[in-house]
């Protein structure tokens, strides 16, 4: 069940310039959450009314904790305010939201997890959840501008391929360049990242008839499917909206790649 939980900050550290790693005590959310879902975080500034959607980078059900990894988008933003908060501070968090990745669909198969930029964190929980199932062969394909944050944590649970735009780590180029140069074959793919990456992954998978699920982003208000603020275009008429639109926050954020128009 999704709910509004008053969470306490357990720790917050900067893991890369401008990228923060936040652990929250969130027993009820952790209990209900699954890989690929997100939460909506309210800032502590009452003049910022809308919550910030952030993916679950890790879910620790046993200790009732969730981990969020987010980028500060600029000066005087809600995320900048969040980044200044210390352990012990309470935060209102709505979640878990959205559908998450269909882990059952790739059970005992070879699966590629594409993550680009700030779309990498949700792939960590996804990799961990899939790796717990020993029959599933997981390869994370991580795309960065530069550097390779979180890559070591991925290496603990799965095989890792890296691409960087500047060539500083792994293959120079995109996540698809990394896959092609490795020659790796797979049965299915999950992807989260910038729209251009999603479009390329979608085309790549569809060309070789590989099932692919992508996680989408859009500006949100309610985060729960009520306001119709966050829609994406769908190929068929959507069962809820009865037009060619689906709600990313409720019907997504994860969609079968062939269902959505990018």
């Amino acid at each position, binding site marked *: *069940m*999704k*709910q*509004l939980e008053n969470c306490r900050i357990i720790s917050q550290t900067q893991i890369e310039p401008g990228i923060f790693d936040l652990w929250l005590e969130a027993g009820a959310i952790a209990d209900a959450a699954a890989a690929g879902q997100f939460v909506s975080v*309210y800032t502590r500034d*009452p*003049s*910022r*009314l*809308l*919550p910030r959607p952030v993916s679950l980078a890790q879910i620790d059900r046993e200790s009732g904790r969730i981990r969020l990894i987010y980028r500060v988008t*600029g000066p005087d933003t*809600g995320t900048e305010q969040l980044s200044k908060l210390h352990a012990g501070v309470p935060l*209102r968090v*709505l979640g878990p939201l959205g559908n998450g990745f269909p882990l059952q669909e790739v059970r005992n198969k070879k699966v590629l997890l594409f993550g680009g930029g700030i779309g990498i964190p949700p792939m960590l929980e996804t990799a961990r959840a899939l790796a717990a199932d020993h029959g599933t062969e997981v390869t994370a394909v991580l795309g960065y501008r530069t550097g390779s944050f979180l890559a070591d944590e991925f290496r603990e649970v799965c095989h890792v391929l890296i691409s960087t735009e500047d060539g500083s780590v792994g293959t120079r180029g995109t996540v698809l360049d990394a896959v092609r140069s490795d020659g790796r074959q797979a049965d299915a793919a999950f992807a989260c990242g910038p729209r251009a990456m999603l479009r390329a992954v979608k085309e790549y998978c569809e060309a070789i008839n590989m099932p692919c699920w992508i996680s989408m982003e*859009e*500006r*949100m*208000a*309610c*985060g*729960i*499917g*009520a*306001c*119709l*603020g*966050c*829609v*994406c275009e769908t190929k068929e008429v959507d069962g*809820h*909206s*009865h*037009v*060619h*639109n689906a709600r990313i926050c*409720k019907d997504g954020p994860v969609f079968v790649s062939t269902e959505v128009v990018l």
Partner: protein
Amino acid sequence: MSNMSVTLAGVELKNPVVTASGTFGSGQEYGEFMDLNRLGGVVTKGVANVPWTGNPVPRVCETPSGMLNAIGLQNPGIDVFCERDIPFLRKYDTRIIVNVCGRSEQDYCEVVERLSDEPVDLLEINVSCPNVREGGIAFGQDPKALFRITQEIKKHAKQPVIMKLSPNVTDITEMARAAESAGADALSLINTLTGMKIDINRRTFALANRTGGLSGPAIRPVAVRMVYETVRAVSVPVIGMGGIMKAEDALEFIMAGATCVAVGTANFHDPNAAEKIVDGIGAFLESRNISDIRDIRGIVQE
């Protein structure tokens, strides 16, 4: 316990708190967070005669103490609404107020007629949406057009008709009088104020529609003033809304003369906001020994 029930156009509501159209869907989603039975009524998202796709994204953005939206009245059409949303709301002990939108007089009348045999309590007619080109606000900014469409809708409507007024006018009382004289049973205000935000990094509009409707606490003083003026200009009851975040805000509208209040953008800030406002109004009345909410309605004079 103080009396919280109010009568709006002949319909009794258990308390004066309803949801604002478009911020609450048809209640399904928020029903997971709160008990819908606690609300005086649910005002549904605007529904048209046929499905509408709405505007391109981005459709929403945050502004200081508010937000802009340009959803463009996406809706599944009246047939799906009657089959799915009305039966859902019927399970709850709360009034059903259906918000109606259209591109032409005929569109509105078709929906209103279709609803005449449905178990809904009140109709709210949105002639004030700033985000669709045709229809919508065209009817809401000209008193003659507003008079005509109100009169036409009244001919087809079986339930009492609430006309929802736009704040994007020079004189709200002129619009209120036009709607009343055409037979409106109640008025609701305010809809959103037209606004714009520019993303200086992308050098373009924050919303794909360029302009959007401003809502939230940023517009509350404008809304309170307009409700105050309207209540003094007409004798039909008024639903007040615009930036109500907590019970104290709702009480401002009631003291300005509103019979009911609607909670909109606040739902996005706290999915339990509407229920908390019901509780807060009750607590306020108790603590001040006010036995009936009607005793403070319009208490602020001159």
